[in-house]
């Protein structure tokens, strides 16, 4: 079970309540939000941008945006929807701005079929996906968001989510089978 689906203590404030706290200038609310989302945000950012300092930079930039514009949040959406939108916006923008030739996440080659080697294969396959497809795949399989939520996060239709996911999964399978050949 991932953090996204972990049951939450009843006394814990909702994401929306934390965002309202941040908007009111409460630093404790911000610390709680960081605690709650950091691992999930880092998982997405690392898979979008690789292991270097960029993932951490992306999470910080996203949280800075959330800190500054929490007052802009409206409860027509779930709090997490808006949070993931800010994060994917930052990751996709940073990907666009990377120096050429670093578009692919290159990591040291590991021999044998250990879990570490599997993970590297997955990283390489992921790095070859276009950033939009990669973000959608991660929101679906790492964060376990529903199609409807992913559509709201990325401001696209549910049909586009399904098309992008199907295409991304096909590409991933193709890349992985190339690696294992």
């Amino acid at each position, binding site marked *: 079970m991932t953090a996204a689906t972990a049951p939450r203590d009843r006394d814990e404030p909702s994401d929306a309540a934390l965002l309202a706290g941040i908007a009111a200038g409460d630093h404790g609310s911000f610390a709680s939000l960081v605690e709650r989302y*950091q691992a999930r945000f880092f998982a997405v950012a690392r898979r979008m941008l690789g292991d270097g300092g960029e993932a951490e930079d992306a999470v910080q930039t996203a949280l800075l945006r959330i800190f500054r514009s929490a007052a802009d949040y409206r409860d027509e959406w779930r709090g997490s929807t808006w949070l993931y939108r800010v994060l994917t916006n930052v990751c996709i923008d940073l990907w666009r701005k990377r120096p050429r030739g670093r578009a692919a996440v290159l990591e040291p080659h590991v021999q044998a079929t250990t879990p570490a080697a599997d993970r590297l294969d997955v990283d390489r396959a992921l790095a070859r996906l276009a950033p939009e497809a990669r973000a959608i795949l991660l929101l679906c399989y790492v964060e376990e*968001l529903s199609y409807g939520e992913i559509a709201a996060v990325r401001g696209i239709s549910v049909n586009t989510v399904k098309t992008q996911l199907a295409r991304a999964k096909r590409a991933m399978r193709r890349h992985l089978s190339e690696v294992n050949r």
Partner: protein
Amino acid sequence: MTPRTDDVSLRGLLNPPAPPGFTERTIRAVRERNARGDLALRFDIAASSSGVARLRPGTGQTAADTLRARALAGQAREELAEYLRGLRSFFTVPVDLSAVAPFQRSVLDATATIPFGEVRSYRWIAERIGSAKAVRAVGTALGHNPVSIVVPCHRVLRTDGSLGGYALGLELKTRLLGLERETPALVGTDITRTVCRHGCSDEQRFSERHRVVFSSLREARAAGYRACRRCRPTDA
């Protein structure tokens, strides 16, 4: 609805833990970056009827002979203020480089093609203008850039990634590069499903929560967005 989970092993592989000390580091970094505030710079601007000819940090003076020149200086001032607040990723005000010598002109023209938020090397500029050996001369030409920021010589670094020089000081160069990393370049609006260059007046009508960032126009189109007719974004 929970998505289908036919790739259970994939999910396990995709989910690494955050590194140790991440929470404290993140909260500290966000507080520090937030406290930094906007870059408060005033500019001395000289414009002709065909564009901005000189632009330097100063006391806010304007030198412009004609009505049109005054309007262009005003436009430059407004766009600079938006740029420094992270509200704009491009300039529409024209520049007037007619007083600039041909070699420097070609260096500045090549520099103007470096996309917002990206960096290139002095060597890249030299090769681009067909003078691969003139790397040092490129540095000198950029050092005398009369229209800083609008012609983005701060986006030019040494080949090894170190900062190189900057006529307005390396601290400002670092701040500008940081600002451009934080500011998105290509932004869609989920209400109109239109994608704009960040800072377009069509985009600025909508609040932060309606904005969706894309990595390219091609990707935006694949997601069902159309290019704004006002700011006309393109892919390099």
